[in-house]
């Protein structure tokens, strides 16, 4: 288990240097997208239309932040359950998306697509929204503002902590961790 600093945009080389179980600290730009935004992007991809942002080398963060209090950059902003994005994720990876941050298991098709397109799935600590918000230095809308907490926003982050769950080699921390500590 290593602690690795990552700077966006991510390259294939960055991805191939990551193994399930590694701790990473991300600096640079990440993009918020959850259920409704994924659905909209997916529909554009299906129709072969231009997306509101280029996904090449980018990181998606599955989050719907709480509103910012006066003086805050952003309200609490922890990850949401990733499985709901499974249906759309392979299509995003095909567009060049290199990583997504969420929490919880991915389906087989998504895990395979991570290998195929050289990408990783990362987890941030679910429930640690107040702590994670401190790592977000700025936020601005990119698309679908009408979706409220579900809009796509660009976040600039500094040393945002996450853990590699699924690497591009087919390893899965959720399975490995369970095997290691199970006493069934």
């Amino acid at each position, binding site marked *: 288990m290593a602690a690795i600093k990552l700077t966006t945009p991510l390259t294939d080389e960055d991805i191939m240097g990551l193994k399930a179980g590694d701790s990473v600290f991300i600096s640079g730009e990440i993009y918020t997208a959850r259920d409704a935004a994924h659905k909209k992007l997916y529909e554009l991809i299906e129709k072969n239309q231009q997306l509101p942002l280029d996904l090449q080398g980018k990181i998606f963060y599955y989050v719907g932040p709480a509103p910012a209090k006066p003086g805050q950059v952003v309200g*609490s902003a*922890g990850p949401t359950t990733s499985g709901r994005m499974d249906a759309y994720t392979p299509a995003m990876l095909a567009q060049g998306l290199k990583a997504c941050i969420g929490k919880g298991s991915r389906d087989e098709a998504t895990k395979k697509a991570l290998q195929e397109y050289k990408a990783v799935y990362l*987890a941030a600590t679910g429930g640690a929204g107040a*702590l994670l918000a401190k790592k977000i230095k700025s936020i601005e809308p990119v698309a679908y503002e009408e979706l409220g*907490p579900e809009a796509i926003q660009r976040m600039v982050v500094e040393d945002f902590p996450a853990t590699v769950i699924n690497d591009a080699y087919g390893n899965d921390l959720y399975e490995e*961790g369970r*095997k290691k*500590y199970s006493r069934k």
Partner: protein
Amino acid sequence: MRELDVTVVTDAIAEMCKESNYFLGQDVVDALKNALEKEVSPAGKEVLRQLLENARIAREEEVPMCQDTGFAVVFLEIGQDLHLSGGDLTEAVNEGVRRGYTEGYLRKSIVKDPLDRVNTKDNTPVVIHTEIVPGDKLKIVLAPKGGGSENMSIVRMLKPADGYQGIVDFVVDHVEKAGPNPCPPIVVGVGIGGTFEKVALLAKKALLRRLGQPNANPYYAKMEEAILSRINELGIGPQGFGGRMTALAVHIETYPTHIASLPVAVNINCHASRHVERIL
């Protein structure tokens, strides 16, 4: 007969929305510290440290612990000798949530129609469960419920022949399948008995108990222990990164049931186990 103006209810609810989302209960803080001592996995320990640090930041800065500030679930125990005046009680509760979520910078997570999915923008309506009880007081419990953990809930109509072992296996298997999704370390609410709808409510009510306080019936207290120990042998660990501290507590609530039935429900809460209580 005692009179209570419903605007008092609105004020209380608005405050409770903020309180429940900003301040992690002391029972949960203690349970997390205890889990940190017991956890053997380094990744699991790191998660528990982050959750304790997160709770400190939320408390000091009065911000929500989690961005998912939940569906506002409200339990009202209304004394039969209490007269609620000054307006519609349901609307008073909704107004409290509307105000609490807006003033408190809490996320609005409710969509008006389950398929249309347009946000109501004020976190209403509330889910209200009312009970008429003796006395002239009003007891309010507010339990904001996050979507990630709520999605990992289940009701199963077991056969009476499945018995004790059938229930334990069902609950443990279900938690195993839920894995990392409900944000472990989790609190597991189990309802046993009643009817289809009653058992789900029992499981939800089980989550309102002070963390780790055993069922008053020693038989079910032992069953809670047995299920907890099996869950913590699954290896899921904090956030599913591998470890021993998958659940902080298992709470069981029971109710008489039909001769043909053995309903069982599992309602999972994330570590925050948010709930606050007021008596007016």
